[in-house]
């Protein structure tokens, strides 16, 4: 198994004369990046003897795109009942489930994502449930086995959701929640969360006593949340939901790593910054439901100016291919080009806890790279080549994809 996980050892590769966008400092004109054993061995040279070289004159080398909010593999293409594996909407609390178990490795979306320069994604369960389950962070390697795609260095993460979705899913149907767990209102959602967290604390106490209750796979995970052993990624939109979740988090003493969507974050950006929570958001998608009605395209910029780490996210196997263009829109509202690039590379890497391995072009980091034939923030640029761990996973010249 270990052998399968390693990319084939290749000769060193030196990418020459590219404009290198490191996401860790200013752009480097006419830059050199050397890859050795799947890792960035140098930025600026020297070029080791015997290294393959790639003349990237006129091109831009950037860290591979990292998407902290994906459902690739869980809603595999083409869409249909048989591919609907993203929401375990059998009850509002399913912390026991793991998005990795749903991933269809044959999802053709992976190939197109690689062609868009995407190298790492977080696959999240859907947002039907208050606690939807654990996430799977994948490197988009071209592999047959899930174990080969898992980003082993990534700490565990969990999806929580608050607001319209859980009450829409559980509010109308008593069939789905026969035990009285119907969620009809936001206050009902918060009450259900408190009951679940209290149940976890009671369970912990009971487990310490004689005749302890049987292991509960759900409450075990909730205890990991309370103990900050798992990164909480919270699906939310409105301010009342954001503030309400901080009441829960403060009461039970856990950290919310990120708001996912958070389209009204700008209204309470000071509170979010004070909690050290990051934000993964859309550029300017809005209006698809009432809690997305007050979205404004300045959300990302205002939030980052308040000290919140802001990442673009896709929530879409289509938009992930063009996350660079979503980031580019933010230049209108005040981000620099560096900030825009960071919002699809190093910032999401931090959000997923993998910033020591990926997200920027720095010596020692994994060689997860995207080479564009122009400025990645220009609509006219195309990815020419994508590397993961130094391995070419997309090459436009010999594109193995229909597109």
């Amino acid at each position, binding site marked *: 198994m270990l052998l399968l996980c390693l990319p084939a050892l290749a000769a060193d590769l030196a990418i020459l004369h590219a404009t290198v966008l490191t996401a860790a400092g200013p752009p480097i004109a006419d830059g050199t990046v050397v890859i050795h054993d799947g890792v960035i061995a140098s930025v600026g040279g020297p070029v080791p003897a015997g290294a393959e070289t790639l003349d990237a004159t006129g091109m831009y080398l950037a860290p591979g795109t990292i998407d902290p909010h994906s459902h690739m593999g869980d809603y595999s293409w*083409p869409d249909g009942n048989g591919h609907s594996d993203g929401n375990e909407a059998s009850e509002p609390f399913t912390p026991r489930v793991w998005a990795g178990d749903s991933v269809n490795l044959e999802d053709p979306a992976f190939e*197109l994502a690689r062609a868009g320069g995407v190298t790492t994604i977080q696959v999240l369960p859907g947002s039907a449930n208050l606690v939807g389950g654990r996430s799977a962070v994948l490197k988009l390697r071209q592999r047959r086995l899930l174990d080969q795609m898992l980003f082993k260095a990534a700490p565990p993460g969990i999806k929580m959701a608050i607001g319209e979705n859980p009450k829409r899913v559980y509010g109308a149907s008593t069939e789905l929640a026969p035990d009285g767990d119907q969620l009809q209102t936001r206050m009902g959602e918060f009450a259900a969360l408190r009951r679940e967290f209290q149940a976890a604390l009671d369970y912990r106490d009971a487990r310490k006593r004689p005749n302890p209750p049987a292991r509960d796979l759900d409450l075990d995970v909730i205890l990991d949340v309370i103990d900050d052993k798992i990164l909480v990624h919270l699906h939310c939109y409105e301010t009342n939901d954001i503030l309400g979740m901080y009441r829960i988090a403060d009461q039970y003493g856990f950290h919310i790593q990120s708001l996912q969507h958070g389209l009204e974050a700008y209204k309470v950006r000071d509170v979010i910054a004070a909690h050290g929570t990051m934000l993964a958001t859309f550029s300017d998608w809005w209006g*698809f439901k009432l809690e997305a009605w*007050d979205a404004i395209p300045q959300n990302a910029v205002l939030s980052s100016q308040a000290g919140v780490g802001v990442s673009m996210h896709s929530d879409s196997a*289509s938009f992930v291919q063009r996350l660079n263009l979503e980031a580019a829109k933010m*230049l209108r509202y005040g981000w620099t080009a560096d900030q825009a690039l960071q919002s699809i590379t190093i910032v999401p890497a931090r959000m997923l806890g993998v910033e020591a391995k990926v997200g920027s072009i720095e010596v020692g980091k994994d060689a997860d790279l995207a080479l564009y034939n122009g400025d990645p923030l220009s*609509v006219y640029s*195309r990815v020419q080549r994508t590397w993961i761990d130094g391995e070419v996973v997309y090459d436009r010249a010999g594109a193995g994809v229909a597109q």
Partner: protein
Amino acid sequence: MNRRDLLRNAAIVGAAALAGRRAFADEPWSAAPAMTWSNGRILTGLPIGAGDAEIRGGVRVEGGKIVAMGPDVTGGTDLAGATVWPGTWETGTTIGLADIDLEPSTRDDVETLDAFQPQVRVVDGFNPQSEVLPVLRARGVLGALVLPGGGVVSGQAAWMRTSGATLADATVMAPAGLVVNLGKAGASDKGPTSRLGVLARLRDVLDANPDPAAVPPPDKKKHAPVEPPKPPTRAEVLWHDLRGGRLKALFVADRASDIELALDLASEYALDAVIIGAAEGWMVARQLADARCGVVLGPVTVQPDSWAHPNARYDNAALLHAAGVTFGIRIGDPHRTYDLTTEAGIAVAWGLPYAAAVAAITGNSPALFGLDQGTLRVGGEASFVVSDGDPLEPRSSVKKVVVLGVDQPLVNHQTELYDRFKVLR
């Protein structure tokens, strides 16, 4: 002339440009102040071959019309190299009919009276006060072909502006054609449930309603009339107009085989057809070019994510262009209509010439309907957008929107929120 008369006239005449001009005849547009803009880059939006795609210079506006354009126009407001362009005209959307997807009380975009409901009209549900419209307008969307949804034949589409205080002001052309949903999109529990039934029922209704103008009058010697014929119903008139080519058939079709079916129907029944969607158009590019029917493709970024279009690809637009097909580009998602510019830019990245991409989101689609909206030309309406850079680049911003010579306010729901929260109190 009141709104009801106006719409009825538009419906009866069915001549789009006429209806459009009529809609504004009594309005203050014609009294719009004169203005001059100079030193800009002007994208005309003209269909390829119809004139210069790009010129330098200025624009002079009087009475809501462009009276001069080009390097000879000087003075007035200095554009300092900014781009003047016609704004986007979307082709196939639900803006004005639906505001919030998951709030049924804001939605009038889908009707399920019947699987065949030609009498359903977009203009009956279009809300010129929709808060979505000012958001889109402030980002350069000036108008759209709005489609009703539901059933196989959803009803009558209309060309609408994103500006105008009243329905009459906003209406450019109504009806603009009958929407015919091919593929599984047309199937529903109110009617046919498969492609087989969709096509069978479509042929039935077309067979049953030949255009009376094209049917030879009965031989009076052989058939003495027993009683005078009944006047046709409203629906029958619409079918007659469709069969007679006076009303367009707007086929929504993505799968290659569905596009072929649309072309077959258009040929068999001599329909004036427009294909909307065409995600797999590149697979039938030759047939589309030969048929010379209208084509609106998009979104450009449609993915091979559905059984309806497993062969979607980014270079669909480039391939169709290379095959000689002229087309408009649509995006479909109403709240993202402003991303039409990005869609066009992506088509360029995948091989579509720049001028063709600009025309595809501006003048091409209106031109299919005999409208000159979406173009900038001397004598045409003074509706345009000023952007601070290449409008197709995501980083560019819209700085000004002018409709029929009148500067449009850029204030909207989003700018009001920004102003309220840009400083936290």
